[in-house]
């Protein structure tokens, strides 16, 4: 069982061969986007962070930017800086460059403003794209796959159909020696006891309990019932009444295998097996978190219809809601039908998703990727803007 991927100097395998222009601070987003619009083969990573935050968050932003830069789908990176931000751009460059891929930096203040920055940034990335275009796909076995899963704009069908189908695909990848990553800690609330039973060690079990308590405390600090925020207004419209109900349907997307470890947000997953990355449920922050974890592809299970992808990680959108399949055909890659009695369509759907993952890994494009939906990301932070 194999796929065709791009070899990277550090031994990782990419399924795409992008050059990323990574904005190091919110103030550099405009220039970053302009360069990505100019240079075919380059993608922009934009976010709202990088300055006027407590050191805890600055460290989290730094770590996340470093590990995004190390994502195997990137052949090279241009760090686009304003020049006076709090995150240390040179440190980020050095840490990404340790992976062996080309990394350059460009400061808007140093080069003399937006127009020369767009021109110079376009020249740098143009050269990187041309060099990257000579890298050829090679055959790798399935154990080189690192796949993430997400559910978004969930409704009742998510827990009944598309999440279990995604979980079945995860189980197959686990059995083939690959790496599976899930998260969305908020959506463990009320279902954490089931995940804790699946922990590979007592330490992992304890850590799952800790990240759930921490996330719940953050929500409770606001002094209100979090319903409306989680589950969202859309979840409620889709039939999900409480976070417990949403969680019980959400955790099945992580499959049924034993959980080997829990990583903090922004960390890179470096081992094989099934892992949790502590993360919130909202798309821009979550997708960034698992892209930093190093996933090559994300299975995205939706109920009502979440359209977005991610700038350099293909997102496979699946739904079990026949109305969503009908009304949002431009955004749904795969529809999974509700099993009739006696049918085992979930297992079959899991196999089909697994094959689709391999096709995408070898170069097949997803709908969000072709439409370029998903340009606006963010990084999860816990403290105030100061």
């Amino acid at each position, binding site marked *: 069982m194999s796929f065709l991927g791009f070899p990277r100097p550090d031994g990782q395998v990419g399924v795409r061969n992008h050059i990323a222009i990574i904005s190091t601070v919110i103030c550099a987003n405009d220039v970053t986007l302009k360069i990505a619009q100019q240079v075919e083969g380059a993608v922009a990573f934009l976010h709202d962070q990088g300055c006027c935050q407590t050191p805890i968050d600055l460290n989290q932003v730094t770590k996340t930017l470093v590990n995004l830069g190390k994502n195997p789908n990137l052949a090279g990176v241009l760090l686009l800086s304003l020049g006076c931000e709090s995150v240390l751009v040179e440190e980020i460059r050095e840490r990404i460059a340790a992976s062996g891929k080309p990394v350059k930096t460009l400061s808007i203040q140093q080069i003399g403003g937006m127009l020369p920055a767009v021109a110079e940034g376009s020249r740098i990335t143009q050269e990187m794209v041309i060099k990257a275009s000579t890298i050829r796909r090679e055959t790798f076995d399935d154990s080189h796959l690192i796949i993430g899963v997400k559910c978004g704009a969930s409704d009742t069908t998510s827990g009944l159909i598309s999440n279990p189908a995604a979980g079945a695909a995860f189980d197959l990848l686990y059995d083939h020696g690959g790496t599976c990553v899930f998260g969305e800690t908020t959506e463990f609330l009320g279902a954490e006891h089931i995940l804790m039973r699946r922990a590979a060690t007592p330490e992992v079990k304890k850590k799952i309990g800790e990240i759930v308590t921490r996330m719940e405390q953050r929500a*409770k600090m606001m002094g209100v019932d979090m319903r409306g925020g989680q589950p969202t207004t859309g979840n409620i419209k889709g039939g999900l009444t409480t976070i417990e109900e949403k969680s019980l349907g959400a955790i099945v997307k992580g499959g049924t295998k034993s959980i080997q470890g829990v990583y903090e947000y922004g960390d890179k997953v470096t081992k094989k097996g099934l892992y949790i990355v502590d993360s919130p449920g909202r798309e821009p922050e979550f997708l960034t978190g698992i892209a930093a974890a190093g996933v090559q592809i994300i299975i995205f299970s939706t109920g009502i219809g979440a359209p977005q992808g991610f700038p350099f990680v293909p997102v496979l959108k699946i739904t079990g809601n026949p109305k969503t399949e009908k009304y949002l055909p431009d955004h749904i890659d795969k529809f999974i039908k509700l099993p009739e009695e006696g049918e085992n369509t979930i297992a079959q759907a899991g196999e089909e998703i697994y094959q689709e993952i391999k096709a995408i890994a070898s170069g097949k494009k997803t709908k969000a990727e072709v439409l370029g939906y998903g340009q606006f990301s963010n990084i999860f932070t816990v403290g105030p803007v100061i």
Partner: protein
Amino acid sequence: MIKKRAIVINSKDNVATALDDLKAGEVIQEEVDSLKKNIKLNQDIPFGHKFSLKEIPSASPVIKYGEVIGTASELIKVGDYVHVHNLKSNRGRGDIK
């Protein structure tokens, strides 16, 4: 084969999930405590939403997937629509000290 109108995920559940837009007065046959029962719906139940299989007293747990998904905030009768108006979450409740 007749398309199922609703689904009960676990035999411990006291709610079922509509697999179509169901109308008030419609009778749904479901297995409750190993017995086939006819449940007459008291309200419209939209696709993906829940109705009660049993009488659930106020302050009692509501069960789906065989697990507690929250607490009834009022008496829920058999065939009642179960949603945010009569089912409260036990988690993330910063409003409760």
